[in-house]
């Protein structure tokens, strides 16, 4: 992939490959944020998706589809630590496959800029609808036991920058947002965001290059944010034990969250060791937790561990019978001990390395992975790419995993008993 830096805060990634059936043109607006804006951004995302694509610009979409096979516009809102982005992705069949699907690059740009800069006069009419919808989705999500237990854990996080709220925003936040705030936020983001443009599966002609330059000069005549702030959230789970009897769910759930002290950063230094630590702890069906708790003792159908760099925690989730909390708790402690004492066969570490390597190489073959990796490189300081990560993983020793254990400290313990 070729990277062209157009000006500060504006990057252009070009990939002229024709291996895939799909061609993609994507524009990302990347900006720093915090929990104060979660509800606003959730609503803004809904308004951009629905009102731009389904209503005012509906006819333009239809025209576009008429011209291009399988053409599709996706508008996504993603969040990574303290950085968020809106991405506008146009995808359609690669021109080499359908001769009657030729297009001009300037059409794509024109189409996209109308969507990004659409000032829809019907927004007021739909705003309350969207607000109701966001709350309904949140209510519906909370009928899922797993989502609910994570949601209920959030207030027990100690957070110096108030990042312990759900990404959708809370009900209180959603209730208080006004349309003017959302509109002002969008204008602000258009003025200040960093812009990443991905152009995948095309050939870049000088004419196309000129069209991009005009687009940027016309609509983004400013300098983007300095995103060199580290990917780091100052949040950690408090030490608490929460036991509850649920009246609506059948399953009993154990959620044990630990905070990561020190060097744990997404794709940062020691990331390979953290991946391996999680993999052998409870990452897959070969892990200590799965083998011991499910396969050997039949205490649980679903048991796994995971790392959340957003919340700066390592956690274990298990569904189990209501009287087995202490037993599973003990098994988790035993797993830490096993890793600390290096009491396992060398094959386990070797196999885990192989599994992660496969996973990373498998990702590399994915259609959208290159784009995702470019974006993360831009957002996450000192981002380790997959190739380097594979090399790093091969170097990880049992001592590195012991070091991971030492960085993990007990946090919230939640025991929910089912009906």
């Amino acid at each position, binding site marked *: 992939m070729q990277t062209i830096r157009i000006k500060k805060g504006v990057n252009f990634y070009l990939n002229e490959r024709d291996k895939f059936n799909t061609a993609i043109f994507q524009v990302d607006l990347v900006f720093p944020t915090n929990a104060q804006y979660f509800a606003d951004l959730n609503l803004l995302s809904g308004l951009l998706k629905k009102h731009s694509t*389904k209503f005012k610009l509906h006819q333009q979409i239809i025209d576009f589809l008429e011209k291009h096979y399988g053409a599709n516009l996706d508008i996504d809102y993603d969040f990574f630590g303290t950085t968020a982005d809106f991405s506008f992705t146009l995808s359609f069949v690669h021109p080499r496959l*359908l001769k009657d699907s030729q297009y001009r690059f300037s059409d794509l740009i024109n189409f996209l800029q109308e969507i990004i800069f659409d000032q829809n006069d019907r927004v007021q009419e739909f705003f309350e609808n969207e607000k109701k919808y966001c709350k309904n989705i949140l209510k519906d999500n909370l009928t899922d036991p797993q989502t609910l237990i994570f949601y209920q854990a959030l207030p027990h996080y100690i957070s110096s920058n108030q990042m312990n709220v759900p990404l959708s925003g809370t009900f209180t936040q959603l209730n208080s947002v006004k349309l003017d705030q959302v509109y002002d936020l969008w204008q602000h983001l258009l003025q200040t965001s960093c812009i990443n443009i991905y152009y995948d599966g095309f050939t870049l002609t000088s004419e196309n290059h000129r069209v991009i330059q005009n687009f940027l000069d016309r609509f983004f005549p400013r300098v983007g944010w300095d995103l060199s702030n580290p990917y780091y959230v100052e949040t950690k789970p408090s030490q608490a034990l929460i036991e509850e009897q649920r009246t609506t769910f059948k399953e009993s759930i154990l959620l044990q969250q630990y905070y990561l002290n020190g060097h744990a950063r997404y794709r940062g230094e020691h990331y390979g060791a953290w991946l391996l630590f999680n993999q052998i702890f409870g990452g897959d*069906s070969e892990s200590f937790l799965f083998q011991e708790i499910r396969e050997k003792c*039949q205490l649980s159908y679903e048991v796994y561990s995971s790392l959340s760099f957003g919340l700066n925690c390592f956690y274990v989730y298990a569904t189990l019978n209501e009287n087995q909390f202490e037993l599973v708790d003990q098994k988790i402690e035993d797993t830490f001990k096993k890793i600390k004492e290096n009491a396992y066969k060398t094959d386990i570490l070797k*196999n885990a390395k192989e599994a992660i390597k*496969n996973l990373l190489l498998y990702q590399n073959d994915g259609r959208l992975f290159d784009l995702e990796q470019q974006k993360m490189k831009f957002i996450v300081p000192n981002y380790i790419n997959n190739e380097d990560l594979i090399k790093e993983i091969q170097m990880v020793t049992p001592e590195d995993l012991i070091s991971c254990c030492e960085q993990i400290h007990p946090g919230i313990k939640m025991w929910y008993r089912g009906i």
Partner: protein
Amino acid sequence: MNFASENRFTIKKLKNGLTIKLIEKPNFKVFNVQLIVHFGSSNIKFRNNSIPAGTAHLMEHLLFHKKDYEIDSLFSQLGINVNAYTTYNSTDFFYTCLKRDRNYFQRSLEFLFDLVCNPYFSSEIIFKEISIIESEMKITDDDSEAQLYSKLLAQLYPGTPLETDILGTTQSLKQISSKLLQEVYDSFYQPENMVLYVCGPITMEQLLDCVEKFNLIESPKNKFDIDQYYFKKVPNILNFPHHKLVKLFYGWSLPQQYLSYQEALSFSLYLENMLGKRSYFFHKMYNQGIINDDFYYDFVVEKNFTLIYFSCLTELPKEVIYNTEMTLLSHLVSTEKFAITIKNFIGKYIQSFDSINEIAAWENDGKYNLEDAISSLDFVKKLRVDQVKETATKVFSDYQLGYTWKLIS
């Protein structure tokens, strides 16, 4: 267009009865491999004996247990995570792996056949695995989507295996013995009743070279009849809480057991045109605040039942159901709009061949499979609006409504 040459599909039947299907993707670096056994939760009879509910799913779990070694560990040596799932009509064992040397791929296939073809059913393991499945049942009970869909099927097809969840019940699982499992296994798990599906950078010749080394035993060719399930015609009285937010599942079962692939495809395009996210129906209902983006539908054509179902969050379920039915019956398809639906289908179809998982989904899509899907492109290009209307009239002529809901707030 060189789409066909880039996605070469071949099918081969071995002497022992095993069917092999291959999509060659020479540019890919990964494989998707599946061993599909045509035995699912709706197979409830063999040799005039009945099979307790949940047997197929329990069998899937038990095959991962071996007498004196762990199958997961074998795959783990290759860095592969193997998994399986059970549906109404089949059990599918699958993994994805990287392109390395021939020996690596050969070994992965060897482990897959070991997983499926070497059962070990001890009473102790059966007892333990049933306790795991009971835990899985609680998770399914708490999953509102899964529950609403199961209830919808139970409502539309009472007295059939669709009335009971794929997992079975605590009572039905107790009736399963190791002897019964072995007999059921011997009947259904035979090469004649299996398909090996591979998508990736390999030719049929190379694949056959790998598979033929396994010496699968040719077993007696049992014929399994597939029972057809017809809905029971009952009057519907729509009853919902007044102005409360509910998660609604509703749908219509259809009597067309012998719907051809082309008819099913035409009807899918009709549904997308009439009820998809770009339809007049969706815009109207959205503008009125009755439904929102979570609205979706699925057209399910299984070997033994046909169903269209819908899901959404709404405070006005009666209006949603009424408007959906009226739209389905209206047959108001504009030629202009339909041309776009077709173009979009063709594009999405071609794009789906970028992903080995999406290609695999064609093979697992209920009654129809990859050889049907491969023919889609030529058929859809020639499809006319009047043909689609005619098919819609035929398919949606006799039907039975079913609905379930869960109170959200």
